[in-house]
């Protein structure tokens, strides 16, 4: 599945990386503790987190995460957006809560097949 495919089915705003929405998404992970993400965050995965500071971009870059989704319309630091643009990371904001969003993405097939 591509980022574009699931975006069509959820309310969202693309904050950065509009030109990379055809990236493949194979799995998903949800955590706000960065070292947990470093340990378990999947390659080419979606990462859902309420952290919005600049360091999430470093984590996503190092793990080659396909896209970061920030739930509950949490405001994102401008420095984070700038860094996402520089590092070509797709950054998405949604009004959904992390639990709802995870359920929807899972239902669409993300992370179902290992």
């Amino acid at each position, binding site marked *: 599945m591509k980022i574009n495919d699931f975006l069509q089915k959820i309310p969202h705003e693309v904050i950065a990386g509009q030109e990379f929405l055809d990236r493949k998404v194979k799995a998903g992970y949800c955590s*706000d503790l960065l*070292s947990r993400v*470093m*340990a378990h965050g999947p390659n080419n995965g979606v990462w859902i987190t309420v*952290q919005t500071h600049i*360091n999430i971009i470093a984590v996503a870059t*190092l*793990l080659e995460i396909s896209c970061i989704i920030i739930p509950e319309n949490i405001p994102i630091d401008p420095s984070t957006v700038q860094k996402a643009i520089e*590092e070509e990371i797709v950054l998405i904001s949604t009004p959904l809560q992390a639990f709802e969003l995870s359920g929807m993405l899972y239902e669409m097939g993300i992370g179902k097949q290992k």
Partner: protein
Amino acid sequence: MTQENSGDLVMTHVYKIEAGNFTIAGEAASNIKKLLRQLGIDANIIRRASIAAYEAEMNMVIHSVGGHLEIEITGGEIVLKAYDNGPGIEDVELAMEEGYSTATDSTRELGFGAGMGLPNIKRCSDQFHIQSEMGQGTYLEAKFVL
């Protein structure tokens, strides 16, 4: 700083790590990753070395008074070294336990201090060594076989 010796294929890069600067935290690890990619290193090794570099860098940003991250690439292995100028780890064995952290509340709010930094480095590397002395500093070495 770069030293290259074409005979032994040795390359060393050293990155200065600033204590408490979360804005540029992760830059050294990102640069190491880019370097390994340019060298055409296997993707799985790049991932493991990048995770280790990130955790070592963050440990110094969060806990130390500042230090250096060094990467050495030879024909057979990648060696990641992290050395700082203190304050040192009181109980290294305890620090190696998953979930143990001495990070402050404000640092934890940012999602750091999960107590998984050192365990992550150990898990990702083929060989791991750490020594620390209070008042002196910490030296960490992680090796990745190519």
